């Protein structure tokens, strides 16, 4: 081959490579970015009779009767829709597409996003202590909140439960006032989403947004700009879509906020504010463990970080009262000096000594550590993707998420109660040769949080979506084992965690059977 031909060949290769650069599409495939609009299989028009969580009754908060659809003010609101629809921007169409997949789903995704953003342990002070985020000053470092798993579980539970109660109230008033949707009042209104026969006053979407905004003021006070922007979009999407007039929206938002305020009042007194503890308490947990003749947990971080929310076990649950939490407390772990514990530590060491690619993948799939939406968020994502296929009404979405997230929060409470009662060391503390395939969580080992969360989630989800029960069980077992594969939990942490989680999950199943929705 002549040199010249070679040169041409090389040149051609370079051109091909350059062409490849421009030909490739780098957009990533997001599983819920392009969902179809929600088209409920059942409207659940009787949901106003379902049992609320915190409300004493569906009409605890009054919603005034709507103006009649022949009133000039209503006609003006119809005209607002028509004028908006006359000049739709691509952004408005995009907003309608995004929110029409389901308001409860989207707010759950937003919440998972806020949790992931805030799930970062604060950096230490110069003196080796750690700063504690302050709700009063959320934008100063350390940012408030540190959305760790217990904090996140509580956030998911409150938002879901508030949205559910607000929707039960909303469906009560929908049935009571029976105001038609704008497109059923005026057939010249365009409809950008699937039509349905559900009365439109108050707007279920505005209820969902209003409840979320009010709850999130408490839970993510530093992200109000983003939250308000999302809420405005959500409400606007309904007017743009021709699904609600402004008075549907206004009444819904007010109702959502009012109901959520009841949850906010509960949250302010649920003892979560004291969960972080104080140096005396941290010392006492350690001393009590030593007094029992055991080796206490020590932080494996440098400098040593106080245990994560050690009094979270005292938080007021939604499903379990304080006596139930104690009743569910796992039996003691094997003594750190026992042969059994030695065996279990060796088992963990054997897993990390020669990690296989498959096991590492399992560890990382379930790790849900720093910078993620936490294990409760992961279970919400798993649930959401199954719920999407079920075509639930908004109120059923909210009810099922409330059941799941109350289980996850109470799982956190029971788990943290057990953890801080026994204050058991991590495998790497008993054998420093145990190097881990994910970060070691900064709290005692027994029982495994992932296992407790997963046992609870799999149990309630198996009740809600029975055809997936085997899959949930398999996922829960894998999530649980992943902690052993990763070198951060013993086998007894995992099995006891699953067992406690299932007990909590069954509390939610009992509620589900009697709430009027099953």
């Amino acid at each position, binding site marked *: *081959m002549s040199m010249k031909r070679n040169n041409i060949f090389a040149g051609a*290769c*370079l051109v091909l*490579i350059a062409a490849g650069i421009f030909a490739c599409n780098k957009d990533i495939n997001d599983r819920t970015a392009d969902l179809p609009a929600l088209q409920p299989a059942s409207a659940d028009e009787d949901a106003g009779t379902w049992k609320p969580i915190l409300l004493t009754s569906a009409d605890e908060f009054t919603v005034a009767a709507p103006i009649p659809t022949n009133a000039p003010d209503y006609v003006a609101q119809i005209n607002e829709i028509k004028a908006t629809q006359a000049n739709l921007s691509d952004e408005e169409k995009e907003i309608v597409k995004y929110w029409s997949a389901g308001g409860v789903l989207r707010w759950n995704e937003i919440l998972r996003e806020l949790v992931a953003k805030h799930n*970062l342990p604060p950096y230490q002070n110069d003196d080796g202590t750690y700063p504690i985020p302050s709700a009063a000053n959320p934008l100063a470092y350390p940012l408030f909140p540190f959305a760790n798993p217990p904090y996140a579980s509580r956030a998911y539970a409150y938002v879901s439960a508030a949205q559910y109660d607000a929707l039960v109230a909303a469906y009560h008033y929908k049935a009571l006032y029976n105001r038609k949707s704008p497109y059923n009042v005026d057939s010249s209104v365009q409809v950008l989403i699937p039509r349905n026969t559900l009365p439109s006053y108050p707007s279920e979407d505005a209820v969902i947004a209003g409840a979320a905004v009010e709850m999130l003021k408490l839970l993510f006070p530093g992200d109000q700009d983003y939250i308000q922007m999302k809420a405005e979009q959500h409400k606007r999407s309904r007017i743009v879509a021709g699904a609600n007039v402004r008075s549907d929206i206004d009444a819904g938002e007010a109702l959502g906020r009012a109901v959520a305020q009841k949850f906010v009042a509960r949250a302010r007194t649920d003892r979560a504010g004291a969960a972080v503890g104080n140096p005396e308490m941290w010392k006492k947990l350690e001393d009590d463990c030593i007094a029992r003749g055991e080796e206490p947990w020590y932080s*494996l971080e440098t400098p040593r970080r106080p245990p994560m929310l050690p009094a979270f076990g005292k938080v007021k649950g939604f499903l379990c009262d304080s006596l139930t939490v104690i009743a569910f407390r796992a039996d003691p772990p094997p003594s750190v000096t026992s042969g059994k514990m030695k065996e279990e530590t060796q088992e963990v060491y054997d897993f990390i000594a020669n990690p296989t690619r498959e096991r590492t993948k399992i560890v*990382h799939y379930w790790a849900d550590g720093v910078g*993620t939406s936490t294990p409760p968020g992961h279970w919400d994502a798993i649930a959401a993707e199954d719920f999407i296929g079920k075509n639930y009404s908004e109120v059923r979405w909210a009810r099922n998420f409330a059941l799941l997230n109350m289980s996850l929060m109470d799982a956190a409470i029971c788990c943290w109660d057990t953890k801080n009662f026994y204050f058991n060391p991590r495998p790497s503390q008993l054998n420093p040769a145990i190097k881990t395939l994910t970060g070691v969580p900064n709290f005692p080992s027994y029982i495994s949080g992932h296992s407790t969360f997963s046992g609870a989630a799999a149990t309630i989800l198996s009740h809600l979506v029975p055809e997936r029960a085997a899959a949930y069980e398999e996922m829960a077992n894998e999530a649980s084992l992943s902690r052993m594969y990763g070198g951060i939990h013993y086998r007894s942490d995992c099995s006891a965690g699953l067992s406690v989680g299932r007990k909590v999950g069954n509390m939610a199943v009992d509620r589900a059977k009697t709430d009027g929705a099953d």
Partner: protein
Amino acid sequence: MKKRTMLKTIVMAAGSMMLIGSAAAQTEQDAIMMNKNQLCGGFMYNHGSWKDYWEGTLKRENLNLGTVTAQSMMFMANYGITDNLNIMAGAPYVWTHASAGTLHGMKGIQDVSVTLKWRALNFKFANNDKLAVYAMGGISTPLDNYVIDFLPLSIGLGSTNLTGRVMVDYLHNRFFATAWGSYIFRSNVKIDRDAYYDEELHNSNEVKMPDQVNLQLRTGYRGRYLIAEALLTQLCTLGGFDITRNNMPFPSNQMNSTVAGINFKYTLKQLTNISLLAGANYTIHGRNVGQTTAFNGGVFYAFYTKKSSRKPTNNLQ
């Protein structure tokens, strides 16, 4: 005119990443060609470590990592298809370690790279100075499904990269200056989890990797047996995001670095098939990367695959 032959100077572009040992062999980074039918192969060892790193633009240490070290052993080969067209390939085995904290080191075969190097212009001035222009195209891709999302202990970033590079080399007596610029197109990567947060939440295991631009200046002495040179390399990631406060690094962070280094290559006078290489470099400035100090050393063997009238030597010019 008879062309002289030589070995490539192979240096891992060590440790400008959060991970160290991103194996960019510099065979495609220097202005030296193999003769037709000449094959050169060898091994290069690299040791890179850092204690400080840039969390975004904030320089910090991490007591729970201590010193992060990545070592690698890389096999490299280069073949002269013609005097003006070379093909080269390489692949490293990488292993990582953190001196503090509990995190487990990683190890494994990283990415194979193949580069086609074309000397498009080779001009000799009246005063014997030489000007050469090169164009290169390369591809690198993981040889194994290694863990990507465990920075800073991952052994690589997992993307398939297409690199286009243009290089200019000027030689005066035995002193040279080389400058090149390259554009690195990086494919998306898949991580082991199915959701992640960069600056928003993605319900996906797929991560969009921003492309990169890499620039280098190198200058020094290029003699018959000895090459001694100084290098300055700038890596810019065209997008990506900063590590947030006290967060873990992520494959699609905006990893930028300015690295200064020196390289030596010595060809044995008695046995000119064999060359010895050594080098060191230091990350002067960076963003979302470790401040790496790296050392490397290697040995290479060159020979003709077909009978040649040329002397089987590694003589330099």
